[in-house]
């Protein structure tokens, strides 16, 4: 018996297509409820950010200088008529305010004026993703009573709707986090690959740079770097600057790992195999070595993003992140904390942006951890 052909494959439910690494990881990931929840919530958060102008009842910076609504409290939404108790169209009451010169508290009281809430009302015009124009809002009080407004999460220092601002802020908080990490990943991969590939002086220079950046505490470095750029640049440019700085200070770790990984992958048999087939160095780098970083990169991204969101919030908190008219959750919090104790005990709703940070970072962590586990080869046979 000399046949070398195996008999019919033994006990293998043959699938038509092969299972790539990603398919396997996805299978693992599907089993992790927490991570999936995190992932779904993150998708919702991003949808919220994209459609912020539509979901928000108001414009980012709308307030009135005649009808002062500084720190307007959240308005409860009623769905029953107070007299009849019957269900009606949802409505909120209009509030009046008065500075109590005895307690120095600006007192808000609901009036009897009902502001009905309509869905799909016309209001402030906007552009979704910068090009889809619209003026339709998910909900609002319409135009019956111009001074009527819904404050789902209260108002802030100038009386602007906090809910609206949180939604708009999510656009910046969520993009800066992702943008900076994506950028630093690209830089890190590139630098790491350069170092591993060229070795010698290039390697030394890059690794020294990594060391130097790591040696200066990141907070100091960010503040220093930000101070190079004039603050009067276009606010949107300022965001890119912060994004760039965040990316600049954080590529080191990845570069180091990439270099190490590539150097060790270089010793692996499948690279030797490609070399023996006559593959060029470029091909080996791009087809064989860099892809080994994908797992690390995916996990790194999903764990780096929350870290960056946190850093960004910290920077905005100390005033070098988002600047008016743009807001991020961190800068909203910074504005909140200027009120000191009052923010905590007389208008706690200004802290809501903080919980958005906590929530988002938490979700990202769950997702990132789930991905890490899913890609963990130890979890597979």
């Amino acid at each position, binding site marked *: 018996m000399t046949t070398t052909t195996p008999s019919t494959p033994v006990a293998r439910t043959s699938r038509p297509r092969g299972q790539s690494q990603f398919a396997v990881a996805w299978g693992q990931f599907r089993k992790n409820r927490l991570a999936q929840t995190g992932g779904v919530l993150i998708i919702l958060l991003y949808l919220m950010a994209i459609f912020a102008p539509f979901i928000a009842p108001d414009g980012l910076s709308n307030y009135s*200088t*005649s009808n002062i609504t500084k720190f307007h409290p959240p308005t409860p939404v009623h769905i029953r008529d107070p007299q009849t108790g019957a269900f009606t169209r949802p409505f909120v009451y209009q509030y009046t305010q008065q500075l109590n010169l005895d*307690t*120095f508290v*600006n007192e808000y009281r609901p009036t009897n004026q009902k502001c009905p809430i309509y869905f799909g009302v016309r209001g402030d015009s906007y552009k979704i993703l910068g090009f889809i124009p619209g003026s339709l809002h998910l909900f609002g009080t319409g135009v019956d009573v111009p001074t009527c407004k819904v404050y789902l999460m209260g108002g802030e220092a100038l009386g602007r709707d906090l809910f609206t601002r949180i939604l708009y802020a999510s656009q910046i908080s969520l993009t800066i986090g992702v943008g900076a990490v994506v950028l630093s990943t690209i830089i890190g991969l590139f630098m790491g690959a350069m170092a591993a590939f060229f070795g010698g002086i290039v390697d030394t220079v890059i690794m020294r740079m990594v060391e130097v950046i790591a040696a200066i505490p990141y907070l100091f470095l960010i503040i220093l770097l930000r101070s190079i750029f004039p603050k009067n640049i276009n606010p949107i440019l300022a965001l890119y600057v912060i994004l760039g700085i965040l990316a600049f200070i954080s590529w080191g770790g990845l570069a180091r790992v990439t270099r190490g990984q590539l150097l060790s992958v270089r010793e692996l048999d499948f690279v030797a195999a490609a070399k023996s087939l006559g593959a060029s160095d470029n091909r080996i780098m791009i087809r064989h070595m860099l892809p080994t970083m994908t797992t690390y990169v995916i996990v790194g991204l999903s764990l780096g993003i929350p870290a960056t969101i946190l850093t960004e919030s910290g920077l905005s908190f100390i005033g070098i992140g988002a*600047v*008016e008219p743009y807001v991020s959750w961190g800068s909203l919090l910074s504005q909140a904390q200027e*009120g000191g104790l009052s923010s905590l005990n007389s208008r706690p709703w200004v802290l809501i942006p903080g919980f958005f940070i906590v929530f988002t970072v938490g979700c990202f962590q769950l997702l990132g951890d789930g991905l890490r586990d899913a890609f963990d080869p130890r979890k597979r046979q």
Partner: protein
Amino acid sequence: APFVYPAAWTAEQNTANKRGGEFRDYTISDFKTFNPFTSAEATSIPLTMGAGAGLFTQDPRNDEFIPKMADGPATVSNNGKRFVVKIRQGMKFSDGQEITADDWVTTFKIHTDDKVGSNSYDSFFLNDKPITVKKINTYTVQFDFPAVSATAYATMSYTPWPDHVFGAAYRSGGAEGVKKLWGLGTAPAQIVSPGMWVLSSYRAGERAVLSANKSYGDWNKDSRGQALPYLATYSYRIVADLNAALAAYLAGQLDAYGPRNADDLAQIKRAIDGGNLKAYLKANVSPQASSQWITFNWNKASDPAKQKLFRDVRFRRAMSHIANRQAMVQLALGGLGQETYFSTYPIFKNQIDAGLSAGAPQYKYDLAAAGKLLAQLGYTKKNSDGYLVDKAGKVLEFTLSTNAGNTTREQLGRIFADEAKKAGVKVNFTPIDFNTLVGQLTAKGENRPFDAILLGLSGGDNIWSFGSNVVPCGTNLHSYNNPTDGKCATSQEQLMTKLFYQGDAELNTAKRLAIGAQLMKAEGELQPVIYLVGGSYHVTYNERVGGEYPTNLQNSYYLSRDTALTFVK
């Protein structure tokens, strides 16, 4: 004979002669040095130590200078330019050395040595001409001013630092010798004070503790002949920011606090009402001694259209009409503040009143009026975005900057920009880095790098309440027009410059107020700078301390108490 603190300076007499105890104050920035010649902070150890030491002191009841370390009024001669002052005898430094004329002369010399870099350097010059200080004998000093000065008494009231410490170092080591002395590392025991307090301990970034200078009590008595101060200790807690200070105050860890706004007041009131804090609280005691304003750049060679616009008085008046000061007070100041229209701080009520009665104009919030003025400038049409355009279709717009991080200013700017939009003026409001902003503001030349800046000033005195660096042409903070040659661009500016020097040299208060009123009128009409709003000054302190000024004397200039008369109940 000792100096006797008038009984009227305190609302509550320390009849029980309570002595000892500690007054717990705070500061939001750490101390940088103990050296009086290199110190530059608003709250500093030398400043605190030297409290009560000066030839003259201003009486809060009538703003007059009365002799403190001087043994009597100065002898004035040479057309009011020479002052010969006799020094009170028997005064000692905290180390027991007698305080003599040498100390004044040495202190003066060191302050005016440019290598020392003293912050007080400029105060010894009048219009770039130096004052001279001469010792006549051990107990007599002579001051010679280059010109007559209304602020001569304030100038002479600097704190004398010990010649036997600084003079010795200066003579042997020059400026460097002086600068080396009294760093933060210096042992408190080596530090000598002529004033009420002397340093007893310091922990970097946390706390400085000063104790009463025993020698001070020898020549300072209360109206019943008791030595002052009553307190044994005066301490500073160094806090991160005012929120932290408020928290500490509410926790009973500090004896006084300067409430900023309605929020602070509400917190304190709530703590008091809740029985957690026994404290005195009075809101709106007086306006603040500061201003917030918008200045337009007249030196914009690169953009002649803008330069022309900014130099047009109608434009500036329109801008004043646009400033919704009412909303600013309500939103940015929480309702506790007042509208301002002049460079003189509202606290200097005498001057303001004089100006108003002389007909100094106020261009109040009135968008319609603004619109009319702008129409006169050729801005009659609005484009699709609602902005005014000129005939060429160019939008009426400019950039307004302020320093990032100052919430109040950011809100003022926001409101200004938003109101401007209603009037069809496009204001690009950007908070920028403080240093950059100041660089732009103080830049000199025909083409200065900004459109408009929103900023504030504080400092100055109630004798002649116009800034020497602000009003005259060619000075640093003549912010709207600062060309290379420093020349005035308008006759009003020339008039204002003239009036400034005239008032500065006028010793008669009434006459001085009248000159000031003319100045205000010129300024109001020219509207070189749009003044916006000013906050209110509030007073609160823990009720365990007494000895504060009577309520009518408390204000943002004299504050709420003289520490000499403060005691722990």
